[in-house]
């Protein structure tokens, strides 16, 4: 009932298209994270749901009805802005209860909701302070409180944690999830921080240059990326991506070749492509200095020390890979052997950059 649906939505500022043919289904009561680099359109998408941006083409459904022409105030949406947007001339309490007062809610009800929000967000004692007298974390909680008292079925958050320091962020993240578990709103959350996205979201919608790249559970987004961008964006250090060709059962990278297992060969044949991108995450890139058959050979060029692990940069005939390992770390100049773990690799169609799929089992 309180779902959100984008149908072929396009948004342009004059000639500048910022959202291109967006089709996105957000389920009722789920926590959906809009993730992506700056400028990818995630905030614009969020603001379209709020009615703060016009939709150029296409339809936006909320709860089954088309809301393109419905004003923000009538969509029953609660929103937390990146800079909190508190009213600087009002006290914390007035900030929280302002919306309720304007709509002449029963004073007892206003009191109840306001007190509850102040309590839940640990703002007791701060009711009569003005925003300028509060710390960043406190202001953020006031912004949350203001959104929460509305009891809206839709809850939108625009990078709500990006102005907080690391420690506070952890705490605030947990609070958000708690709020959601209490009220079950349809929650749409914008962030550029992957870790936040993975921990908060039931599903992640990854966007890039106004185009939806992939929408799926954090696990799938991580382990089964739908395209090259997703593979490279999610995870740190980024996924190794190399140009590859499949020919006569062999996977060929930079002139070297290994045998590709049957499951993958089937996928390649299904997709009818021979030029591909090969991908594997650094933490699954197992290398060894011991001679290995059916493996790629490379020279170590550079080593990074992460404290608990090492990043080993090695080149396979000029193509660079990173391997993250914590023991048996090779030294610069050494020859290493890289036999890919085929349950962990990704293969993408070279032309479309889309994943060719994953073998069963």
């Amino acid at each position, binding site marked *: 009932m309180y779902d959100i649906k984008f149908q072929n939505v396009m948004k342009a500022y004059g000639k500048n298209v910022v959202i291109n043919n967006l089709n996105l289904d957000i389920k009722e009561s789920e926590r959906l994270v809009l993730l992506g680099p700056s400028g990818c359109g995630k905030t614009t998408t969020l603001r379209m749901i*709020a*009615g*703060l941006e016009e939709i150029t083409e296409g339809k936006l459904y909320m709860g089954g009805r088309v809301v393109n022409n419905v*004003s*923000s*105030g*009538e969509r029953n*949406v*609660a*929103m937390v*802005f*990146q*800079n909190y*947007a*508190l*009213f*600087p*001339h009002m006290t914390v309490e007035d900030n929280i209860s*302002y*919306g309720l007062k*304007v*709509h002449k809610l029963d004073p007892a009800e206003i009191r109840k909701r306001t007190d509850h929000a102040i309590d839940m967000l640990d703002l007791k004692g701060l009711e009569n302070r003005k925003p*300028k007298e509060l710390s960043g974390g406190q202001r953020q909680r006031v912004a949350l409180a*203001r959104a929460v008292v*509305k009891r809206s079925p839709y809850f939108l958050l625009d990078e709500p944690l990006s102005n907080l320091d690391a420690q506070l962020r952890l705490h605030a993240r947990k609070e958000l999830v708690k709020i959601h578990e209490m009220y079950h709103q349809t929650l749409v959350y914008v962030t550029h921080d992957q870790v936040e996205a993975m921990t908060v979201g039931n599903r992640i919608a990854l966007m890039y240059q106004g185009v939806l790249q992939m929408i799926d559970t954090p696990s799938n987004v991580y382990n089964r990326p739908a395209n090259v961008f997703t593979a490279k964006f999610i995870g740190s250090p980024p996924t190794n991506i190399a140009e590859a060709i499949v020919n006569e059962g062999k996977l060929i990278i930079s002139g070297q070749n290994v045998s590709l297992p049957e499951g993958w060969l089937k996928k390649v044949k299904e997709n009818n492509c021979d030029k591909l991108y090969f991908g594997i995450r650094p933490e699954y890139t197992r290398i060894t200095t011991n001679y290995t058959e059916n493996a790629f050979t490379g020279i170590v060029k550079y080593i990074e020390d992460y404290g608990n692990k090492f990043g080993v940069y090695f080149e396979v005939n000029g193509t660079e890979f990173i391997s993250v390992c914590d023991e048996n770390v090779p030294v610069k100049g050494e020859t290493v052997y890289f036999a890919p773990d085929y349950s962990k690799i990704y293969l993408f169609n070279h032309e479309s950059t889309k994943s060719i799929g994953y073998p069963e089992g």
Partner: protein
Amino acid sequence: MLITKKQERNKRNGLLGYLLILPSFLAFAVFMFWPLLRTIYLSFFEWNMIKPYKKFVGFANYVEMFQNPQTYKIMGNTMVYILILLVLNFIAPYVLSFVLSIIIKKGHNIYKRIFFLPSVISLVVGSMLYLWILNPVSGPIAVIAKMLGQTLPVWSKSEGLVLVVLSLITSWKVFGYNFIVTLAGVSGVSKEAVEAARLDNVPMWRIFMDIVFPMSSATGIYVFIITIVQGLQYVFTPIKVITQGGPNFASSNMIYNSYQEAFTYFRTGSSSAFSIVTMVLFTILLVLEFKFVEKGVYYEN
């Protein structure tokens, strides 16, 4: 303060600083501060600017001023001027700035440039133009009125109405400047705060009263004050050009009256007393503004 480590340099700095402000300060000293003192002095005398000696009368000028019923008529007129000027040049630009900045969002530049245009034109010219336009017999407004079966009153001779018309003429020049300033103030209000209110379905007029106006209050106070202080001085020109304070002092205000007392009736003592009282009123306004700006400055920084 510029980074200087030597004491000597600091001293030289201080000296150079004084030197740099000296020319301005001299001009102020000769034509502003000393005259201010002199006017206060003159307010205790009776003098017609020609006689070689002045007659000391103590507070007589002030007493006479407050005992003269005409004074109250003039003060009343001043209040009416202030009210009309505030409506046309404080409330109107503020509301329109809100409309332009938050409701329409487009066309800022064009409107700004057109509204400001009359501000660069002399009010003497403005008075001439409006004398013709509002001419009750042969002006275009009168012609249109006649077509609608109405006749325009002879406003320059009707008490009350004359105040309105002279305020209108003055506002023609003042509106543009005030609009620019209020627009800047309103535009400076956090867009997101307004959006937050819109999401709460707060009606526009409440967004203006509860959010935009308080958040731009520093600008608001500034415009409020200059509308009164400068507006009243600007009205001097149309009064002098068109009605010379008439009919029967119905269009005179405190500023014009001071002028008239000095240069038409040659009663410098009376004029000076009037001027001082006017200035005291303005000073009270200044003090009020300072208090408000202390509070208001946070929002705009």
